[in-house]
């Protein structure tokens, strides 16, 4: 159970990377396609905001994975 949680948490960046390619391949008008368009048209404010949001999503994924640890295994404490 715990390794699965670790894996899921650490897969969030790959998810975003995958979205970049998949949305381009299938011309899906999502946020990843917007990222690519922002980069090709040198729209730095949008690109910076999207990068910051993606980073926040990654951190959130890691946080959720860490918190789920405590739920899945009561022996895990959060006191450090």
């Amino acid at each position, binding site marked *: 159970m715990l390794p699965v949680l670790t894996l899921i948490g650490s897969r969030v*960046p790959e998810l975003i*990377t995958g979205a970049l390619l998949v949305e*381009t391949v299938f011309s899906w008008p999502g946020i990843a396609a917007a*990222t690519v368009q922002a*980069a*090709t048209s040198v729209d730095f404010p949008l690109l*910076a905001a999207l*990068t910051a949001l993606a*980073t926040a999503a990654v951190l959130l994924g890691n946080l959720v994975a860490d918190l789920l640890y405590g739920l899945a295994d009561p022996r895990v404490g959060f006191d450090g």
Partner: protein
Amino acid sequence: MIVAAVVLAVLVAPPLVNLDEQAVYLAAKLRPPSLAHPFGTDDVGRDLLLRCVYGLRVSLLVGVVAAVVATVVGTAVGALAAASGGWVDRIVMRLVDVFSSVPHLLLGIFIVAMFRPGVWPVVVSVALTHWLSTARIVRAEVLSLRSRPYVDAAISGGASRLRVAVRHLLPGVLPQAGLAAVLMVPHAIWHESALSFLGLGLPTHQASLGTLVQSASGALLAGDWWPTLFPGLFIIVPTLAIAGLAGAWRERINPRRRSELML
């Protein structure tokens, strides 16, 4: 074997064949594979075998240079962090954490977008996004080496800091750093392809594995499979071959850990 064949093809073929890979023959556009064109031709009649070899050349160059730069940066940062310890170590490693929380490809896109399209922005972007894991590996290795008895012996024997670092720590770190570099080459090639595929890496007329797949996507929708399949194979086979080679090397220097290919 495959790695040797790939390197040979990439180094020897272009001067030997001496054909223009950019030559356009509109009369022979989108021909399926045949004897004259083993991989077929693309949408403006360029020979795909030739373009694949040239593309592999560009991609390998990008991959190797980026991997070397990333490894040098990573080794320097990791060694600095481990050797100084204390607050330098803490600040540097938090910086590494900050960088690694940004998705690689996204950061790469950001860096590429700051420059004009070309080979070097791609190299810079791939190198700057890939030194993090090497820095971590090297730091851990240096820390474990520093606590070994022979290092203590050297220090109590009066060896200077520099001498300890060069004679006793560096040789222990080099195999790990070299391995990280080789493992990074496929990853870097893959990143170059992804960036070029998104239209952000190399200019489209320059053959690289990513631009080849990208320019083939239109033909693929029309049912012409060969302009996508062969460059795709050119991405997969050499990178898997290099990764396999690196895996075998890892088994030799560290036979205990035998799992997970870092792709």
